[in-house]
């Protein structure tokens, strides 16, 4: 038996209501205890221990390993952009020990072989654990349902078609009804395809930039409708990519009525507005849904504080530089975010007093674990859980720059931004990995 004893850190485990100085003992790939203990205590209590590694975490926050429920990989299909292994390794540098990858690959993750492939590639790489979100309908076309039952058995943690080329209300309703048998969430990307043909947020900035806009009503409409479908079917609807004031309000209303809906936003929607987009037509700021306004950010923060938004994800999508070095309208959407999500949460939510550290970490640990039904083994430091731990330096201020990012692709909308807070090391299922910051 091998052990890791993390000593002297500030343990923040939102699920168990712990925020105190304590030591964390990991034995093999499980959490063994959270308490005050010395090396001698550990050796006395665990006679079979062959190797014990001591980590001094003084000055660091010791949290459950972060869980990212929105990562886009290019594998299979576009593995020059990002492979499962490269994303899983980048995740560790951002403090994430578990990532859910989206099904918008080529071919899409709409069959058992695809679901197994993703997990096997993740295991082979040996970094963060990689779990597949599978398509709701075959080819994500919004017509025939995927083999949901068999996909669940093969490890699918959620179902989503991502953005479809055309609206398919019938398929979503049927899909939610079918998925509800298996107690898995349906993740809908909420932008009406008929209204979301532009390249940046519709409004003042787009009007001046001369760039076709994506109206915020395109999001509200689809979120409100999916909430109705969830009400009708009893299915758990996970509202991903909430970016607008009125979509947040739609989720809040549905929750009040008892609909099973959870909410999520990506970190960059909390830090940047469409005004930044117009400044230089920087294609690193071209994301879908688009960056919105300061008013929307205020409502996202309110939604986070009130618990309407349960999770913060990275929405990570690597894009090759030659594809981003194009005209704004021609460049693809997408931003890397695995390494900046924690920093944005700590800087823009904890640093501003919107959330306590424990509340912010809940949205990166236990809440996404609950959404993906992983909470009995991930997202907390409860003894017996997977030995997934993030060691976070909460006071480390850094500038986001291509050189400061480990990721294969550097298309971060936050290049040049100053963030406070960064992971120093993670332990993923009992294995210690130092980040670019080092321990």
């Amino acid at each position, binding site marked *: 038996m091998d052990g890791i004893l993390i000593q002297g850190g500030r343990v923040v485990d939102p699920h168990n209501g712990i925020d105190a100085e304590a030591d964390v003992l990991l034995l093999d790939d499980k959490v063994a205890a959270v308490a005050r203990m010395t090396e001698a205590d550990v050796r006395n209590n665990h006679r079979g221990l062959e190797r014990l590694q001591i980590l001094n975490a003084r000055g660091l926050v010791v949290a459950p390993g972060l869980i990212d429920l929105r990562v886009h990989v290019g594998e299979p299909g576009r593995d020059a952009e990002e492979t499962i292994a490269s994303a899983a390794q980048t995740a560790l540098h951002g403090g994430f020990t578990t990532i859910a990858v989206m099904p918008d690959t080529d071919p899409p993750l709409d069959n058992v072989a695809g679901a197994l492939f993703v997990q096997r590639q993740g295991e082979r790489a040996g970094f963060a654990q990689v779990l597949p979100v599978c398509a709701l309908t075959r080819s994500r076309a919004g017509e025939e349902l995927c083999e949901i039952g068999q996909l669940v058995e093969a490890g699918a943690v959620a179902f989503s078609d991502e953005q479809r080329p055309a609206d398919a209300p019938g398929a979503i309703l049927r899909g939610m009804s079918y998925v509800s048998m298996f107690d898995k969430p349906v993740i809908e990307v909420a932008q009406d395809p008929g209204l979301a043909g532009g390249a940046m947020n519709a409004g003042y900035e787009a009007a*001046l*930039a*001369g*760039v076709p806009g994506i109206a915020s009503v395109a999001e509200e409409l689809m979120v409100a409708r999916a909430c109705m479908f969830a009400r009708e079917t009893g299915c758990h609807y996970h509202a991903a990519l909430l970016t607008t004031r009125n979509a947040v309000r739609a989720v809040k209303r549905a929750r009040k009525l008892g609909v099973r809906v959870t909410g999520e936003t990506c970190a960059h929607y909390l830090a940047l507005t469409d005004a930044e987009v117009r400044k230089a037509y920087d294609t690193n700021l071209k994301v879908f849904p688009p960056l919105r306004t300061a008013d929307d950010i205020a409502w996202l923060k309110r939604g986070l504080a009130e618990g309407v938004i349960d999770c913060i994800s990275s929405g990570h999508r690597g894009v090759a530089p030659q594809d981003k070095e194009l005209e*704004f*309208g*021609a460049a*693809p959407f997408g931003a890397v975010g695995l390494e900046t999500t924690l920093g944005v949460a700590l800087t823009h939510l904890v640093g501003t007093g919107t959330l306590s550290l424990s509340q912010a970490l809940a949205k990166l640990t236990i809440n996404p674990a609950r959404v993906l039904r992983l909470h009995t083994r991930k997202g907390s430091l409860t003894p017996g859980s997977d030995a997934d731990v993030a060691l976070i330096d909460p006071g480390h201020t850094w500038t986001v720059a291509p050189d400061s990012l480990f990721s294969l692709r550097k298309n971060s909308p936050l290049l040049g931004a100053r963030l406070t807070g960064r992971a120093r090391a993670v332990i993923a299922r009992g294995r210690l990995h130092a980040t670019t910051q080092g321990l």
Partner: protein
Amino acid sequence: MSPDDTEQAPPRWTRKDLLGLEELTREEILHLLDTARGFSEISTRSIKKAPALRGKVVLNLFFEPSTRTKSSFSLAAQRLSADLVDIIKEASSATKGESLVDTGKNLQAMGVDIVIVRHQQAGAPHLLARALDASVINAGDGTHEHPTQGLLDIFTMREKFGDLAGKKIALVGDITHSRVARSNIWGLRKLGVEVGVIGPRTLVPGAFKELGVNIHYHMDEVLGHYDVFNILRIQLERQRRGMFPSVREYHHLYGIDQKRLAKMKPGVLIMHPGPINRGVEISHEVADGENSVILQQVSNGLAVRMAALVLTQSAREARP
């Protein structure tokens, strides 16, 4: 001698590129217009040549069809004795063909000094300007800006009115999709001029109110208020996309004809950046009538573009 006299006055134009009027100061706009006034005289000479850009290479890089703007830039460059290359291209997509930046870099490697770019994507000239050492002049980027058109419109108004203080200028038509409207609005607002936009609600961004622009949906209510009506071309494709019901209805509500002209101020200027749809946004009689300065706009375009070429090039050469 005061200490000020010993110091050299800072250069009044330091930009290697002309990308839009939004980023220019009032002083820069006035300096460019004053420079243009000097050049407008060349067109009246029998030998229409000046040596300012001798040995320089000007490239017209047009990704959209254009007759007027491209010939105007070509003539401006030729009158300044520059060598001229024309490239007309289909815009490449993300997946095929050479990227805009690569095209620009290749042409720069052949010694191009000034790139005049027209592109259907807003921000394309900005992308090029960041990537190239050559000067970049925006000849229209999507629905964003068309700075030399805005400048020549203002030049023409100043030619007729002198100082524009207290004047009121209206832009009529499809404001949403007009780069000419945006450049006019930025330029005129910086000069402190009252600006109004007139058109159907589906083609007028309400957000422009935040720039201090008056917004009118009913033209007949404001015919007597403005000193200039700058009429934009209505594209029939917008009707097919449901932006307005029909050409007939558009003409009925926003077409400038003799009856509407009669209700305007006596010395009102009728402008149009061209090409004109006679009988749609402007009647045949008004287009050729005595209030129309449409052809003066075209002549002034040459002088303004000569000024833009010379100023950006001097600024580029003055850089350390």
